[in-house]
């Protein structure tokens, strides 16, 4: 296979991101990668500001292209852009940019499923590519997603389980919010959990004994709310009590994620398991998952894609590269946002 370069564009929700990948038979290199994250704005307003995100996508994507000296004629072999799932208004910023460039330059476009991008983030890690043998079982965990996906081959997937209500990342953020922790609540909760006793509070493990590989986290949220409101104001302010509750919440979420992944691995016999998405940055989840799968099935958990956990364009370019190699291109004239896209 001849080496090729591919541009990736991502604007499905809060982040605007651009990346250029060089792919050859022996290596995959990220030549350029820049993400305009909304986090400084979050901190200023104490929450996510979606409208700001949607409006700034336009300005951000143009300055990202400027800095990568790409517009309007990029010197790449293909342009991969997130087609969905996501917000229509946000997705269209990336898509229209890709279409304009394709029209001006004749470079082919590839519409990429955002979820496939997350799966491809694991493949961007060199050590993982060395043992990339199908089938691979992926646990996709983020603020908006909790899915167990069987990767049967490049571009071939089967969702074997998913959340029926809240996503795992949402469970972290919302329980943190109930306890009055700051934003983003998930990482703060995990940090406090380090100094807490995870057996201090008895929290439910929703769907634990259900035979499906589906998840449910909204009941946990309600249980945490009842537990928190049952504490005296003095106890609510006690740091050790707070740490204990944080540790108990994290343990409940991790327990369910690991148990369901293990059960799915028993059924589908993957060669390896990977964890992708924002929550894959959680150290405790990685540790428990690795120990459990190694002990129970002798299966290893692939390395986390450091720096590529949350939404980014490198993963979109990587998934685009899988399609490009298999000549699965999109017609730029017909390319449109698919807000409800699924794997």
């Amino acid at each position, binding site marked *: 296979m001849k080496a090729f370069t591919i541009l990736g564009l991502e604007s499905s929700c809060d982040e605007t991101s651009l990346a250029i990948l060089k792919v050859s038979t022996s290596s995959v290199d990220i030549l350029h990668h820049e993400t305009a994250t909304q986090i400084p704005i979050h901190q200023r307003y104490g929450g996510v500001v979606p409208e700001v995100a949607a409006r700034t996508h336009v300005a951000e994507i143009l300055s990202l292209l400027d800095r990568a000296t790409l517009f309007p004629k990029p010197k790449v072999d293909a342009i991969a852009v997130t087609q969905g799932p996501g917000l229509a208004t946000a997705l269209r910023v990336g898509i229209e940019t890709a279409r304009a460039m394709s029209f001006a330059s004749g470079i082919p476009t590839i519409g990429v499923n955002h979820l496939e991008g997350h799966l491809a983030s694991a493949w961007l890690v060199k050590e993982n590519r060395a043992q990339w043998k199908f089938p691979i079982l992926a646990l996709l965990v983020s603020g908006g997603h909790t899915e167990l996906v069987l990767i049967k081959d490049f571009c071939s997937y089967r969702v074997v389980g998913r959340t*029926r209500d809240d*996503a795992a990342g949402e469970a972290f953020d*919302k329980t943190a919010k109930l306890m009055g922790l700051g934003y983003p609540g998930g990482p703060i909760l995990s940090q406090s959990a380090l100094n807490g006793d995870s057996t201090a509070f008895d929290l439910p493990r929703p769907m634990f004994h259900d035979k499906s590989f589906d998840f449910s986290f909204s009941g946990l949220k309600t249980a945490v709310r009842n537990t928190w409101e049952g504490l005296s104001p003095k106890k609510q302010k006690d740091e050790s009590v707070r740490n204990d509750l944080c540790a108990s919440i994290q343990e409940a979420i991790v327990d369910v994620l690991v148990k369901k992944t293990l059960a799915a691995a028993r059924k589908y016999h993957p060669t390896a398991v990977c964890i992708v998405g924002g929550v894959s940055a959680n150290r405790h989840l990685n540790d428990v998952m690795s120990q459990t799968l190694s002990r129970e099935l002798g299966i290893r958990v692939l390395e986390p894609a450091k720096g590529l956990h949350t939404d980014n364009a490198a993963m979109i370019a990587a998934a685009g590269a899988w399609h490009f190699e298999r000549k699965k291109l999109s017609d730029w004239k017909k390319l449109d946002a698919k807000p409800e896209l699924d794997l």
Partner: protein
Amino acid sequence: MRHVTITTGDTVERFDVADPSGWNDIAELLASRLVPGDIVALSGALGAGKTTCVQALAKAFGIKRQPPSPTFALMRSYALPKAIRGIKRLVHVDAYRIEKPDEILALDLDEELADGKSVLVLEWPEQITSWLMRHISRIDVSIRGE
């Protein structure tokens, strides 16, 4: 136990939901009254059961997929397998992450409603009251714990 208050114009009705299946009755009642262009504004604290209520409504509309929380995605829509009184689509919106009322413009909700075949269910309506006030065709559902 949850206490549910349904306000339609000047009419106020109160219901108790004792267990998860109780949401089905509330949903059936709502589904029987809705027409295209309607908004169901669903308020209640974190963990009160708002998404559970929407899941029951989706079921009442014959939608097979169980709607997950749209907090992160902000908006998800579901096609009805069979139109009910002209309703062909359920749009599920969550304003939890919205900080300023103007931000709702990014979702183009007016356009979503203008297609003449959609019903919109909105969680955290208190985040966008000024947008909501412009819409008269509205049912307010408020959920409280014990």
